[in-house]
């Protein structure tokens, strides 16, 4: 409100020691605005509550009466722009009346504090308070006052008991009269507000029953008013309907982290208010889409009875309940089918080299083979002992049988004598060895068997690899 901001600025200016200036300023502001809260100090109700005297109020109430009268005659005007405007005006008026009631309540409370200060904290509702004050008036003996229909029984008892020990004193006549007038005033305002709301609701039933079934007539009226009519509302996409009525309060310098929902008037609907905060975003989007659908139905007069709207409302409720469902309980999983996965067989050079260590060695392979036509050598000689096969044959140049493999010569000699042999002291064999004779070693270098470091290290033609100057 512009006036509120002005008053704040004025407060800032008032930070001076000049008290006379201060008083003058406050007096001025009092006289300007009827809704200024500083008017509480005044004694006169008419200064405080000016709404009923405004043109606007009278005008709208008059129109209301006319419209209500028209309705009862049987001719209902549907969908005219004037009626829509009237409905919007009615909504604004009802908000104003609410504010007015609060002001009047404060007035009554201030006056009645002298008589019964604790009543204010026992009865919170302004209209109920006004009614109770009217009932009790200046009565000192609370038992004579019958408050049955006005309050809850528990509250009645509380009020009666507290009245016995109240610190208040009876009011003087003039103040009492003013208080009672104020109470009447409050009650009249309340009834006017009820009438306004009734009118809006009734009209909503004939203009937009489906929309009203989903969001409620008050919010429906607001939406229509902001959109500029039912057809305009129907033509809007749902994302626009979502933000109708959203007032951007992003003041410069304030963070936007706390600006939670983008829903405008839809925030005030019963469905939105009853959903838990975590689901409100989703619920608002759902509401906007369904209410747009309902508005479209209403704009084309497709369903005058409002059943479509009720069905949509049920759908929304069901959806929201579904979101709130806990996940289904986990059941124990059945065991897998017993299937042993065949082992992954790997190949490659590394595996082959590893396997070679356990495979049959080349030496054993050669020992297993035999040459045709030539008798093989054996460890004990003459066919006894382990046969050597192709091992150590003259033709093969790889493996040699070391002398250790041969049995001790002494034993061999003994065998030789016992076995019976030729006249020569030695057994003839292709290897032809004697006591003194060792095993002939071949020159591996000549055969080209050596490779790598060996060849270069022992090489005759090799050069020094590293020369160090001493």
């Amino acid at each position, binding site marked *: 409100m512009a006036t509120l901001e002005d008053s704040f600025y004025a407060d800032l200016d008032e930070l001076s020691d000049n008290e006379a200036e201060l008083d003058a300023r406050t007096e001025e502001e009092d006289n300007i605005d009827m809704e200024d809260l500083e008017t509480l100090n005044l004694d006169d109700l008419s200064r405080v509550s000016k709404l009923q005297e405004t043109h606007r109020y009278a005008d709208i109430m008059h129109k209301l009466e006319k419209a209500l009268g028209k309705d009862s005659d049987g001719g209902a005007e549907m969908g005219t722009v004037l009626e829509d405007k009237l409905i919007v005006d009615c909504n604004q008026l009802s908000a104003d009346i609410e504010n007015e009631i609060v002001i009047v309540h404060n007035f009554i409370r201030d006056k009645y504090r002298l008589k019964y200060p604790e009543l204010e904290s026992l009865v919170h509702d302004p209209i109920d308070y006004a009614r109770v004050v009217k009932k009790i008036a200046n009565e000192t003996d609370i038992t004579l006052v019958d408050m049955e229909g006005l309050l809850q029984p528990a509250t009645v008892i509380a009020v009666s008991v507290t009245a016995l020990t109240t610190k208040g004193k009876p009011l003087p006549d003039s103040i009492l009269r003013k208080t009672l007038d104020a109470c009447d005033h409050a009650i009249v305002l309340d009834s006017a507000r009820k009438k306004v709301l009734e009118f809006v609701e009734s009209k909503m039933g004939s203009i937009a029953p489906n929309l009203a079934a989903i969001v409620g007539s008050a919010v429906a009226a607001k939406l229509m008013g902001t959109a500029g009519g039912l057809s305009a509302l129907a033509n809007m996409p749902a994302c626009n309907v979502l933000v109708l009525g959203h007032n951007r309060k992003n003041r410069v310098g304030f963070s936007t982290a706390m600006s939670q929902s983008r829903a405008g008037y839809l925030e005030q609907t019963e469905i939105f208010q009853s959903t838990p905060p975590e689901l409100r975003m989703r619920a608002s989007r759902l509401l906007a889409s369904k209410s747009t659908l309902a508005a479209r139905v209403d704009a084309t007069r497709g369903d005058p009875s409002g059943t479509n709207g009720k069905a949509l409302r049920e759908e929304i409720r069901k959806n929201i309940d579904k979101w709130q469902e806990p996940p289904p309980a986990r*059941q*124990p999983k*059945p*065991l897998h*089918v*017993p299937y*042993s996965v065949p082992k992954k067989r790997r190949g490659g050079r590394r595996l082959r080299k590893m396997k070679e260590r356990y495979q049959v060695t080349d030496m054993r392979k050669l020992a297993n083979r035999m040459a045709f036509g030539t008798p093989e050598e054996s460890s004990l000689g003459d066919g006894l002992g382990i046969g050597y096969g192709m091992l150590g044959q003259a033709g093969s140049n790889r493996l040699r049988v070391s002398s250790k493999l041969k049995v001790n010569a002494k034993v061999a000699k003994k065998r030789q004598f016992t076995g019976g042999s030729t006249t020569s002291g030695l057994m003839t064999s292709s290897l032809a060895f004697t006591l003194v004779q060792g095993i002939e070693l071949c020159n591996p270098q000549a055969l080209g068997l050596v490779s790598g470091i060996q060849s270069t290290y022992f090489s005759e033609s090799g050069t020094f690899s590293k020369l160090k100057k001493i």
Partner: protein
Amino acid sequence: MSYLLKTLTKKEEIDRIIRDTIDEVLVLRFGRCSDDVCLQHDEILAKSVRDVSKFAKVALVDVDSEEVQVYVKYFDITLFPSTIFFFNAHHMKLDSGTADHTKWVGAFHIKQDFIDVVEAIYRGAMKGKLIVQCPVPPERIPKYQLLYKDV
């Protein structure tokens, strides 16, 4: 507990279930619901039916009905409960160190024993064997004596 498992009383039902269980071990328990050893056995079966549901099916045969007597005679069932295993309509034998390899006589001690037996039968059957070794340790195998009469 046995209300969780299907009880068969007619010959057609037994035939149908043996025929229709494909690639799953079929466990048929022959016994009475009132017998206490049968009750114990049934409880173990009911507890493990979900665990082995991917490769086995369990059914109970009430031995008191007349149509079932044919089967009782055929399988030579004398002690209750007796459990017979089938795989693809073929009768699987189980060598558990007892005298009778064609069936399992008595109740299992623990759920895991039953699951092990079913798994052994499944593996053996998938490999094409007709008789499998029982994986249950001998202390948990119910012992019984067969008296041969008029044989």
